């Protein structure tokens, strides 16, 4: 009996042992599934210790480069700089290991480490971007080089690269803005063309203020500007080379010409021509000079803007009784209305990303800058004031510049910037009043 018991017991034990080992044996953690809601929306803190000067000659420029990069990032409203005074440790060598704990301690989420050297008349700037909390680099280190007088452009290129890694968007800092600089009282305004870096540096005037000039726009290669001038007595369209200031006059155009823009391939311009009081949209081939009429009819058709693929044109027209936005083929023909809200719509501009159209809207006596999808849906107003007018897109389609005019006898325009989410609206300082800004593409 006992023996039998023992045998049975052992057999049972063996059997259970086999079963037990057949069963999973891991000591597992339980899983908890949780939806994280909320979160905070605030500028992302970053630190950018002064770029290391790898030779004594580059010490001064290293500091300037660092500041330009920091200011570029700050100007987006998405980032906040942890000031140098708060840094626990410094960076003395570009390839030295990062003391992540020191940057964590001051809550810096991103760390930009850089170095500058200038040798043989060549300025070289390199940087590396670190994710402090993940303790890992974000992307590879990158090096830019150029002539020393282009140090600003190199700085902007570094900032664009940092921005792209942190946001997943292409940057827009290495770009220029052309605009109309205004002086004088409201009833005797003097206007002239001006150009500056996106951050306001390097401002230069392209014309005198002797003749009324309006609404300059960049060519796709950022080398030429189209604008409207009254120097002949009536508004006419001119093209000026930014470097040489050489002018091309479109002499054979009848009537008054204004609101010109380049096609995305730079081969044509589209503009409004007003003849016998009737304003319509035309294109002019830049090499042949051939003029093609795109709209006809007694209504006012103006403010045309090409889509980035050059296939369509959005413009404003009052053919329906009030100023509204329409889209037509770049060859003209049927136009489809895309604006449907209350009020008047004007100055449409197609985003370089092709997904949105920015515009001016006037409703209830107030002006707004807004964006809508290219089919007119999801209209969203970003600003409101006495007069907000004439948006222009940043190269990455994320930011708009426009001008705002104050009301009253002393009313005057200033350039403003706003993110397409409506955030980070701020004035862009200029030496005098300013209007009609136009943003270049990313400089090559």
């Amino acid at each position: 009996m006992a023996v039998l018991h023992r045998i049975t017991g052992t057999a049972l034990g063996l059997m259970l042992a086999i079963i037990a080992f057949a069963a999973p044996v891991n000591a597992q953690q339980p899983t908890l599934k949780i939806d994280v809601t909320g979160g905070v929306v605030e500028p992302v803190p970053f630190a950018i210790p002064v770029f290391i000067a790898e030779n004594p000659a580059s010490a001064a420029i290293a500091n300037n480069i660092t500041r330009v990069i920091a200011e570029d990032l700050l100007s987006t409203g998405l980032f906040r700089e942890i000031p140098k005074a708060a840094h626990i440790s410094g960076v003395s060598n570009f390839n030295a290991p990062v003391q992540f704990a020191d940057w964590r301690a001051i809550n810096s989420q991103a760390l930009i480490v850089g170095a500058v050297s200038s040798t043989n008349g060549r300025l070289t700037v390199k940087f590396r971007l670190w994710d402090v909390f993940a303790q890992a680099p974000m992307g590879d280190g990158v090096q830019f080089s150029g002539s020393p007088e282009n140090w600003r452009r190199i700085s902007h290129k570094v900032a664009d690269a940092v921005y792209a890694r942190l946001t997943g968007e292409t940057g827009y800092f290495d770009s220029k803005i052309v605009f109309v600089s205004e002086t004088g009282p409201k009833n005797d305004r003097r206007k002239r063309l001006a150009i500056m870096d996106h951050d306001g540096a390097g401002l230069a005037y392209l014309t005198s203020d002797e003749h009324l000039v309006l609404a300059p726009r960049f060519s796709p290669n950022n080398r030429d500007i189209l604008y409207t001038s009254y120097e002949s007595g009536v508004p006419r369209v001119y093209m000026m080379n930014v470097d040489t200031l050489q002018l091309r006059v479109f002499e054979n155009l009848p009537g008054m010409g204004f609101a010109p823009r380049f096609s995305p391939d730079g081969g044509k311009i589209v503009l409004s021509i007003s003849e016998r009081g009737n304003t319509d949209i035309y294109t002019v081939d830049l090499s042949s000079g051939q003029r093609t009429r795109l709209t006809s009819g007694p209504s006012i058709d103006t403010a045309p803007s090409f889509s980035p693929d050059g296939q369509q044109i959005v413009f404003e027209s009052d053919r329906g009784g009030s100023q509204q936005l329409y889209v037509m083929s770049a060859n003209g023909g049927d136009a489809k209305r895309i604006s449907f809200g209350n009020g008047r719509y004007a100055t449409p501009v197609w985003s370089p990303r092709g997904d949105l159209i920015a515009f001016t809207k006037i409703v209830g006596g107030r002006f707004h800058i807004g964006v809508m999808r290219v089919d007119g849906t999801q209209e969203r107003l970003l600003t409101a004031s006495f007069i907000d007018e004439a948006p222009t897109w940043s190269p990455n389609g994320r930011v708009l510049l426009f001008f705002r005019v104050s009301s009253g006898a002393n009313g005057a325009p200033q350039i403003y910037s706003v993110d397409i989410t409506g955030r980070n609206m701020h004035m862009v300082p200029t030496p005098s009043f300013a209007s009609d800004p136009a943003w270049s593409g990313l400089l090559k």
Partner: protein
Amino acid sequence: MRTGVIISALLHGVFLLLIIVEPMRSPPSRPDDVIINEVTLISAADFDTPQSDSPFIPDANIAAMMQPVVEADDATRPEDAQAPEATEMDITEAPTARDTDPDLSAVERLKQPDVAVVSAQPAAPNIMPQVSPAISMGQTGSSLSGSFMPSSQPRSAPRIASFSAPALPDNARMSDRTTETTTPDETATETAEETTAEAPPESATEIIPEAQPDVPPTAAPPRAATPLRRPSNVERVAEAVNQAMREAEEAAIRELLDAATAEAATQAVEEPTPVAPLSGGQRQGIIQAVSRNWNKSIVIGKENFEQLVIVLEVSVAPNGMIVPGSVKPLEPANPQGDFQVAYDAARRSVIRAEVIPLPAGQYPEGVRLELTFDPALDEAGFN
């Protein structure tokens, strides 16, 4: 002779216990539950340099955390722990969070071995009145995320079939929730029956304590060890062991069958991992710890931000510390572009949180968190 039998029986019993208890202390395995250390490409020099902030979990802390687990065997009876939860209708437990009560299941099982697992649908009418007010009150809690309120915008982002999937019609969700909340409301019997199908191995465990009817039902598997301290009478033990051996044989066969059916049920339901429940407050605490470190400012600036939903996993040590390098993306599994930016922000939030407020002693193995970050949802879980 008898002594020999007794000693043999004792040893056999212990051996059996160890064999059977060991695999039962943990749920069915997840074959890919491996902690991966995030690899940083660094130069050799960097590698040799000691990182000053290498995370280190002192063993002493773990031991300290383990202590209460063993002692608090009467601190949370299932019905006690669950009763307050029952009124907090904001809980939407994923099936993995279903309450378990291995001890009770065994006890009840032996009484009514053929009781099938019911979905508790018949109990729905009882639950409904309680659930509705919670909805209208807009109780906070992760379970009341946008999944509860019908989302006005269709989400095209791929989501794991979690409980918070918005695509389910409300009534379907209600019944799911009903099933869940039924658990705290029903008697321990029903709870036990439900969990029996999912955790059959546990039922066999409790055959041993069944011999000592005064064993109180406990919720935490480790408490199954408690009975080890109880035997005082050798004779009683011998009888118990004999009976246990016979029962164990039957149970083992039944266990294999149930494991097979449970496996099938598991696939259908979605990997129910038996785990002690989180109260609404505890869940909220975990959400807070992460979300206050989650800076979604860049993500919500994107045109398509509503689609940038991220699911990641992270291991948490029993003392609540994030296991470094254990953060991994789940959905999407390989985030690119805008999803990369969203994932970076989500990952950063977990790393910055550093410590997750786990309920003391409730997860002696630590916990694997599966976190869903939906930037469109505000703190209350609404769009």
